[in-house]
């Protein structure tokens, strides 16, 4: 009977997840345009991938983006969660306000940011100019655009992470704090010795998910640099193109399904390795009650 209930679900997973995954790995060994029969190439796609300047640049950008966005988001959301866990005025309002970006459509977010960050007419640069600060070309300067993407990502993700951390904070029993206070621990000691260790399972969960998300970044690049350069190319796109963008472009613009599958397989292996590494490292810092 149990099999009957699980059956349809598993059939779907097998049909729409497992089979395409296996098939993608097979496709990555072929030259296939989606039109004619695939031709078997062996590992040629992979050889090309690791010698292609564009593909290597995509990997570099993906990691830069991850190393920028993940730590900043995590630190900031931890800070906000701790602040909003205390009894401050208008606590409910702030909690909602920080969470709002998480329930807004990413494309809409990007469109509004494009206006705000317009280097000539945007509010951000007008404010910077009024303060006598330099006004960078947030969206059009290849040296700045990655920073812009990281900042917007942080703004978008901080709310969701904050809510999860808040839940985590409230799950920590009062008795630990009381005990610590009785022992005479100061505020910092309590935070680092009690709160952080007890929050570490939540932090671990968020870290793992965020690393995966960052490695799969696509929509924000597509809307920010893709639209500016009309999805065609140039310094701006080269400064921001990620691995998934490369997969999209090769697979659906250039119809190089085999090569795109090879890129997807490499990305899959990278995510797998990163996740495995985190699970290995968690033994050193994650404490379960």
């Amino acid at each position, binding site marked *: 009977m149990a099999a009957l209930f699980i059956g349809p679900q598993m059939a779907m997973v097998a049909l729409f997840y497992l089979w395409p995954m296996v098939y993608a790995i097979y496709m990555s060994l072929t030259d296939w345009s989606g*039109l004619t029969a695939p031709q078997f190439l062996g590992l040629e796609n992979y050889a090309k991938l690791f010698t292609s300047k564009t593909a290597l640049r995509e990997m570099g950008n993906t990691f830069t983006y991850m190393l920028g966005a993940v730590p900043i988001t995590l630190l900031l959301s931890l800070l906000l969660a701790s602040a909003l866990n205390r009894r401050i005025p208008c606590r409910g309002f702030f909690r909602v306000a920080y969470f709002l970006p998480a329930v807004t459509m990413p494309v809409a977010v990007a469109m509004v940011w494009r206006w705000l960050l317009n280097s000539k007419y945007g509010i951000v640069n007008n404010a910077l100019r009024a303060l006598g600060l330099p006004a960078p070309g947030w*969206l059009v300067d290849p040296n700045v655009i990655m920073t812009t993407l990281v900042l917007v990502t942080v703004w978008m993700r901080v709310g969701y992470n904050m809510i999860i951390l808040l839940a985590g904070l409230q799950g920590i029993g009062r008795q630990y704090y009381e005990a610590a206070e009785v022992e005479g621990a100061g505020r910092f000691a309590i935070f680092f010795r009690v709160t952080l260790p007890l929050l570490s399972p939540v932090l671990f969960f968020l870290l793992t998910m965020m690393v995966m998300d960052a490695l799969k970044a696509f929509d924000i690049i597509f809307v920010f640099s893709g639209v500016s*350069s*009309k999805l*065609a190319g*140039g310094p701006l796109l080269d400064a921001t193109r990620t691995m998934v963008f490369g997969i999209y*472009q090769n697979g659906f613009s250039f119809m190089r399904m085999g090569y795109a599958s090879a890129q997807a397989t490499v990305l899959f292996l990278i995510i797998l390795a990163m996740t495995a590494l985190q699970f290995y490292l968690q033994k050193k810092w994650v404490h379960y009650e």
Partner: protein
Amino acid sequence: MKRRFGRTLVCTLLASLLLAGAVPQAQATDVTTLKLYFWDETFTDVTQQTIAAFEAQNPDIKIEATCLPWAQYWVKIPALISSGSDLDLFWANVLNGVEFINKDLLLPLDGTRINAAGFTQPTIGPFTGTQGTLYGVPIFYDCSGLMYNKALFDKAGVPYPTDDWTWEDMREAAKKLTVRDENGEAQQWGIYLDSASDTWNIFYTFVYESGSDIFAADGKSAAFNNEKAAQAMRFVYDMVYADRSSPDTQEVQELGVTELFTSGKVAMIFHTTPFFTTMYEAMRDQVDAVQRPAGAREGTPLSAIGYVASKNTKHPEAVQKFMDFLATDAPNDIMAQKNTPALPSATEKWAAAFPGSNTAAWIAPLSSGTGFPCPYVYQANSEVWSLVATELNYMMSGQKPIEQGLADLAAQVNALQQ
């Protein structure tokens, strides 16, 4: 027992569902239905009118038209062809048409029944295979032209552009029409050159006009890595950075051409035929156009859109009838409501919608122009397009010397051709 009953019930239900789907709804025996796909929603009306006119002449054929947005078009059409789905007729542009002919995915037409001679070479050429076989019929074309805002010329006391302008005339006028404030910030630009990403209006056309070819005659290698092409690109670069008559590559990315031109911030722009229609609707007699200023070589590259047919169509005879019909006056007269029709005799009907405008600027290239430069590279046209845009962007933002950019681009394009 109970279990078996349940299974039987499910099976019966499923079977009846399948049967319901399989029985044709209307038993129309003699009517052939063709499936037609196009990508531009704004052409829905003219497409329906064309179909209605055809069906009136051919009551035994019905055509069902579907608009597939451009973003999915070239992903879905190949999938429909290769999966053997119902797909008979579809729009193709010059680049993709050539690509599909090379891949042997299109139905060869009986050219003797189609009045191909009524069309000019730049529009029908791309739909003709290397052996002279006809694979499609053009329905409309676009070309690049120079549009200008009359009011800004009047204000600066600069005479309007003419069809006889040269590159230098344009450059001088653009300088005079650029207005700066006391800080040197441009308040008005003489011209808008989307030098970084407009492969058509900037790269293909300027390089062609410089006298350099874009691709070798067989379409199999790059032919633009030479001094003429470099001069053309340097000319554009100097208008942007030396004269500062145009927004630069970064400014162009943040400033939309439509808003700048309609609000009188830009005096001249290069754009294609449909954009003139849009601007005319917005600005009426404040806007006019001339042919592109002449470089060393005459002739503007022209892009044509036409109908082609899937090799796997089940109704080649009905498809052929539709293609025969497309080469006649009626569908071209209908197209004239919307865009420059491919049949030269119908272009005057299009021009009638723009009284007082120099519509000849858009019509003359139909006979004097040239086919769009096409790389005959298997499976890689879109990739060539993207490479051009990438290197153009590097050259025009000053991040790469022009000669270097052209050499790199040529090397990459040639490398696609293995």
